[in-house]
């Protein structure tokens, strides 16, 4: 493939697809941003809940593990 072929492709693309970068701006997205901020600040990943549940169960059945757990924390 040479420069001429790249140019031919360029011409084909430009003839078929319009640049969209100068399109009208978005609606005010700040309310959506605020929703996302409040959502994410209270969200705890599911894996953390699994780990917490696992650790709680371990301590319930084997309370003697507490010093070892504290040591590793």
């Amino acid at each position, binding site marked *: *493939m040479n420069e001429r*072929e*790249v140019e*031919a*492709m*360029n*011409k*084909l*693309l*430009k*003839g*078929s*697809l*319009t*640049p*969209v*970068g*100068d*399109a009208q*701006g*978005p*609606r005010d*997205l*700040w309310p*959506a*941003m605020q929703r*996302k*901020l409040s959502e*994410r600040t209270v969200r705890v990943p599911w894996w953390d809940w699994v780990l917490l549940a696992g650790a709680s169960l371990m301590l319930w059945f084997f309370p003697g593990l507490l010093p070892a757990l504290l040591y590793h924390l």
Partner: protein
Amino acid sequence: MELLERFAAGDQDAFESLFHQYQTEVFRWVLRIVRNRAVAEDLTVETFWRAYRAHARFDARRGNCAGWLRRIATNAALDHLRSAKREVPLPDDVPATGQTENAAEQSELRQKILAALQQISPKLRVAVLLALIEEQPYREIAEALGISEGAVKVRVFRGVRALRKELEKAGIRP
């Protein structure tokens, strides 16, 4: 304290000011990549969310907030393109203007090009869209992708070659 410094220090009001100042610019950048307004709006919010989380890493002394946001936006858009690989290609795309009597043929050609673009890797697709269709400066594309201008040219070249193969499969010879 300057707005950028306050943002880097975690000031929520400074973040809101920056959001209003840059949301249109970020939206248009993302729209150039995904070519879908609804997706671009979601990704604009995602971009600012990522920026908000990374505020401590922003170097306010360099002051290039637009460039920093473009880079985050590009990464968010690339993540979207990778995850949306099997979705319907670029559904909200704008038809080319100046079509004449063979509008149906033009429309079919456009659909084939969009489908072919969907087949090439997101990294190459972004380079082709930004450089060839949107005619963005190579320097800005390089900054947004975190690579050199030379590497952008290589990606555009490889993207064109990949696109050409896909178009040939669809019976179009550029």
